[in-house]
């Protein structure tokens, strides 16, 4: 028999915009963001919570959007990589994005959104001032291209800045 349950609603603020949507209960937050809202900057790399490519910030915490259901974001405030910069060509990169570019911490870019969001969340908690700490912050995400050297340098440059 068809499922007669009430449809599942998710009412969430994503990048400052409120969305009220009907979703399948099993839809992951990553698929909701990508497929429904067409915020395709969030990438799905492993679908089991290890690689971190799908990291977004939910109510201030960096989470794996592949391991979270869209309905769990009901009432939550979600930030994705698209929120970091205004998307016009003239929109300035954030200091973190700019440092990633200057230190060549980006190659294929598939993991980059996840690193952006996990490091953004970490920097809100406090400065990153030494290499060991930088590597610890970065260790929740996997990059296959860069060997992390540029990321460590970029994070240290930005992370010790007083404004964070």
């Amino acid at each position, binding site marked *: 028999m068809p499922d007669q349950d009430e449809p599942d609603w998710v009412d969430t603020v994503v990048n400052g915009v409120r969305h009220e949507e009907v979703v*399948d209960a099993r839809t992951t937050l990553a698929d909701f963001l990508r497929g429904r809202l067409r915020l395709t*900057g969030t990438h799905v790399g492993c679908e*089991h919570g290890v690689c971190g490519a799908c990291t977004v910030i939910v109510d201030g915490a960096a989470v794996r959007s592949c391991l979270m259901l869209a309905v769990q974001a009901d009432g939550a405030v979600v930030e994705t990589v698209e929120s970091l910069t205004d998307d016009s060509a003239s929109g300035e990169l954030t200091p973190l994005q700019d440092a990633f570019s200057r230190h*060549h911490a980006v190659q*294929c870019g598939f993991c980059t959104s996840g690193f952006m969001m996990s490091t953004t969340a970490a920097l809100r908690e406090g400065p990153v001032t030494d290499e060991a700490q930088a590597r610890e912050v970065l260790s929740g995400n996997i990059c*296959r291209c860069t060997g992390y050297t540029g990321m460590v340098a970029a994070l240290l440059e930005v992370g010790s800045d007083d404004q964070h």
Partner: protein
Amino acid sequence: MTSTETRPSTMIGRSVLRREDRRLLTGAATYLDDLELPGCYEAAFVRSPHAAARIVSIDTSAAAAMPGVIGVWTGADLPEIAKGIPPKVVHPQLRDVPRMPLPADFVKFVGEPVAVVVATSRYVAEDALDLVEVEYDVLPAVSSTGAALADGAPLIHEGADDNVAVHVVQTAGDPAAAMAAAPHRLRERFSVTRGGGHSMETRGVAARFDPTTEQLVVWDTTQSPHYVRNTLAHLYDMPEDGIRVVAPPDVGGGFGPKAQFYGEEAVIPWVARLLRNPVKWIEDRRENFVATMMERTQVHDVEIGFDDDGHILAIRNVFEHDQGAYCAGLQVPMITLSTLPGQYRIPNIHTELIACYTNMVPTSSVRGAGRPQAVVAMERMVDRAAEHLGMDPVEFRRRNLVQADEFPYRVGLTFRDGSPLTYDSGNFPLLMDETLAAFDYSGERERQTAARAEGRLVGIGVAAYVEGCGLGPYEGSRYRLLNDGTILVTLAAAPQGQGYETVYAQIAADALGMDMDLIRVTTGDTGRIPFGQGTFASRNTATAGPATLQAGDEMRGKILQVAEAMLKTSAASLEIHGDRVSVADDPSRSVTLREIAGAANVGKHGITLAPGILPGLETTVYFAPERAAYASGTHAVAVEIDPETGAIDVLRYVIGHDCGNVMNPMLVDGQVLGGFAHGIGNAMYEEPFYDETGQPQSTSYLDYSLPSSMEVPPVELVHIHTPSPLNPLGAKGAGEGGTIPVPAAIANAVEDALRPFGARITSLPITPPKIVDALSTDDLDGTGPWHG
């Protein structure tokens, strides 16, 4: 006319920041799964759960009846594409077995696709997978080269006497006699296990058929769009111009596996054509673990003969190569064959390949492509020989290095393209010196001595390699002056993070004598340039690079010729500044690139071109290198072992690297550092286990460890630059060198650390349990303070 003046390099050699970065950092990039394909169906594959089985029956009726399912097809349902996928690189003696897009009768490895479900969403398609009933008659499976080559082994493919795919011997000199006469001979058996590419973006294919134009457009995460187009044209029996293959502007890593062709790539466009509706398939990570090709498994039986002075007299290496269930190409073991001698002058060489089929996913190139294994065999034996003589291993190496004045150096073997294996250029002694100076080799030895006196297990490893790169047959670059006065450079090859849009604009800027701002680079679309090979084998800077240089030079000549006619002057006195071509000594006489395009490209309907105006300013150059250009490198590492846990701590790591002339140093460093991280994975972490029935046991990143920022140690880079004479840029390859010697260097260092015990390390990756095991055996000959 072609300009003959020598223009200074102003952009080549500079660390220009990447044009790609902005979209990647802001989430605005377009990967395959980001393409806007309205109404697109999504596919999922039914895959074999058995490593060897006969397909008795497949019942798709329940799946097909499920709401939201558009269609289900098995191999038997698609006889039109039931053709073998040709191997990429073959050998006359290869016993090839057809690899079908969707096999109808037998499955040969876990993960082999047997049916495809197309549905309105991936969620629905995966639901329907569970309703496809496949009855299998399970057969005995083989999951190692040893099992495959054992007497009475189950046959992977019917109709053969054994599981050997190809057996190739290459020799130089008289290795048997030289080995027999050598004062010292040492033997060992080394094994290197499988490892994957593990691009962060998995594979994916999307396709749309336009019945009006009869064009099939295929978006593919491939490294080689033209190879995919040619293969599809063959399988579909379609003209190649009826198929346009596009690698999206952003592909999330390649590393080799995406340079191969897979059954899914044949099935998805075909069903899109049948359905007259877009269809896409995005591989999930679980599929990636079982169905995407891997590399690396080889077992080497190597013997080295040398004299009292440490001169290598002969090397003999017989190795088993795991080809997997089918031969997707012989490139990997053929490269291993010829990489063995490395940087050393060895008069007598025997290198022998026994490639065999197994019931595991087929193997193909993964970053390094057969070279890391050869370097393990060679460099590990060099260390053993030095130890045997009581000689410093660096001194032993120095006595055998090919010298700087010996290039071009003929090794005595045959390269995979059939030519005599010849190193075009290099300076191995300088590379060794510079690397070890940066490493402070003598200082590290002193620190090692002091550490040993304190009871610490510190070891030093060195490994050197050569890499034949910049392989043929050719690569192309097409220039067009657009009507807005900018230049479009089109490459056939598709990037996966290497920064082509930046580095080829640098090369084009110098070739044209123009600002980079006026140049845009586009890649990876068979509709834009008819011929191409792809991104693999560290080849593009040395193939597409010279093509871009030469085509740019031709294009400048054409632009100047048209400007000359428009300005009624001589090209020799013309200069290009910004978007304007002007007379050198009278800048008031000038014409813009837009005006040149208007005159030469747009024209006026029915009006004859003025004298000297060339019709249509475009040019395409295909550069075909004479043979491979040889990059080289030397790595030095110091490690410390925790004898209780077997953990390896990398104390220092220095990479010496020679990839000839460098286009963008920042990007080259990035390639080397990223390759190094991959090598660290191969050396210490990555191990895809299969049980004896061929079941993969490590199919998640919880079980298969990719190095994170905690595992990849800091590394120092040293560069020397010996330009290749084989191309006008003097370029070689940089994509794989960082990976190649890492397993050998780490293994040498670990065994050096364990030398007080005489413990031996012969299998890679080197994991803590292996070290603890090596320290726990009874036959250790050491008398170190911890022995007991």
